[in-house]
């Protein structure tokens, strides 16, 4: 097993690096209570704005909360949003995309709707939804998913349209296979690989969108320690307490980088012809 890992690393060093980094982040998020953290919401007004030290590794914020604990717990929020949006938008996009690829009249209507949604920049789409609803983790996930779905639908639709013309699908139809069975048995398996890559990129961009939304006050509620929230609270303080921005910023960037590297690696592995170019 160790040798297999070494070979994989030699072939795709950056992808393996990204995968390991992501695993570390996920492990930290799960094990947050046991990583020498304290309650991320515990206020301590006498210990406001302490710079990083042996006692407070990443310092304390304006309410005296321990920034290290908030950053470690913040990994839970970012990763939850990223994974949830990636899965939801992939599943929804897959279902809608298969439908548009096979039913002509749905295609005409649905693709116009998708074109419209796609022409609203993602952050603005999410802002205009979040402004109407209560700030909550579920609403953030829903708002970001809605802006990612059209891209998945487009991808699946183009895959289905080209697969539909393939001889093996024609053969299945000629043999009397029904539409539903053709979709599940012959089309679906061939969409998995491209969707996996697309899903990874959605994972990365959803984490950035969540941080942006929280940063401008349209994201997760203030009582959840997300990386965007920690940085938003430091907006007026960054000149005297730059570490409040620096630590969550570094963790967010590293996690997104890890996911992006993993996505690039998977894309290269699945399409070696493209690997040289990208």
């Amino acid at each position, binding site marked *: 097993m160790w040798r297999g890992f070494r070979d994989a690393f030699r072939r795709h060093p950056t992808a393996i690096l990204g995968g390991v980094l992501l695993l570390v982040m996920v492990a930290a998020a799960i094990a947050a209570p046991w990583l020498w953290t304290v309650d991320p919401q515990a206020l301590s007004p006498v210990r406001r704005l302490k710079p990083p030290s042996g006692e407070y590794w990443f310092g304390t914020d304006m309410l005296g909360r321990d920034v290290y604990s908030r950053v470690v717990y913040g990994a839970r929020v970012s990763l939850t949003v990223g994974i949830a949006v990636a899965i939801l938008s992939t599943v929804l996009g897959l279902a809608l995309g298969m439908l548009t690829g096979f039913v002509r009249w749905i295609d005409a209507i649905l693709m116009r709707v998708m074109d419209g949604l796609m*022409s609203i*920049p*993602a952050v603005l789409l999410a802002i205009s939804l979040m402004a109407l609803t209560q700030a909550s983790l579920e609403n953030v996930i829903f708002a970001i998913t809605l802006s990612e779905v059209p891209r998945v639908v487009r991808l699946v639709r183009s895959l289905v349209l080209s697969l539909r013309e393939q001889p093996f699908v024609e053969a299945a139809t000629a043999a009397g296979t029904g539409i539903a069975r053709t979709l599940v048995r012959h089309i679906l398996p061939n969409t998995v690989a491209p969707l996996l890559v697309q899903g990874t990129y959605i994972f990365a961009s959803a984490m950035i969108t969540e941080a*942006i939304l929280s940063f401008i006050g*349209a994201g997760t509620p203030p009582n959840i320690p997300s990386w965007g929230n920690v940085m938003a609270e430091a*907006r007026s303080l960054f000149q005297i307490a730059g570490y409040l*921005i620096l630590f969550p*910023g570094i963790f967010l*960037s590293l996690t997104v980088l890890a996911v992006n590297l993993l996505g690039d690696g998977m894309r290269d592995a699945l399409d070696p012809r493209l690997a040289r170019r990208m």
Partner: protein
Amino acid sequence: MFAYFIRRLLATIPVMGVVALFVFSLLYISPGDPAAVIAGDIATAEDIARIRAKLGLDEPYMVRFGNWLWALAHGDLGVSIFTGLPVARLIGQRIEPTVALTVCTLIVTIALAVPMGVVAAWKVGTWIDRSVMGFSVLGFSIPVFVIAYLLIMLFSVQLGWLPVQGYRSINEGWWPFLSHMILPSAALGTVYMALIARITRATMLDVLSQDYIRTAQAKGLSSNQVLLGHALKNASVPIVTVIGIGIALLISGVVVTETVFAIPGIGRLTVDAILRRDYPIIQAVTLLFSGVYVLINLAVDMSYTFLDPRIRY
């Protein structure tokens, strides 16, 4: 070709129709009564009811959508809940800094990213190529406001070369204007640069492996002539496409960048509107930016016929 332009122009109508319907539906279900805003604090219930009837707020959904579109066509974007002022006027007051920021960013990023991609493709596999690709991956991964704060900490707080925040109109002189634009443009442009550099490199690699490039080199053209005259010209269609699509990244980034750098533009207006739950402003900005995005991509589509004379419609 003229027929193609008309057809392409008409194709934007359903797209903008969906956007308008989306924005209107959100306004329709948003809490808060425009009639109460207009009536003011000392209005009676009858006053508000009369204003509601006058504004057509009692009408059914589709009639109100029609009225809203009609008002929109006359430049009426509704009334801000918080200030009671017309949204069109509020946006008009804030448009200059946003246009200045996006135009500066566009010019600088395209001027830097395209050569980066060209050189990376030309020197493929060397350290130049690797650093361009490294920059590209990092640019995709670091959120715009983190870059913004890192730039401020380095160039404004530590070195003291550039102002921390704020905006100066170009009327106050070139240097005050530019010195307030450098850091915001750099922060906003990074992800866009990463995208354009990456696509430029990928398309150039494709083009450079074609036979006519070998022919051009064989007949003794200089590498500049080959790269710019033969290769880049033929790689321009995908590059321009990505420049158009990437505008969405810029628009999303503007909201954040203006917040970090305290630039009084449309992005800042939007963030203030979020805090005050001023729905008409948020929806008007969404509509406006989506419209700009659609128009830019329309222009991009039309530019194909000039960039590549083989494209005929």
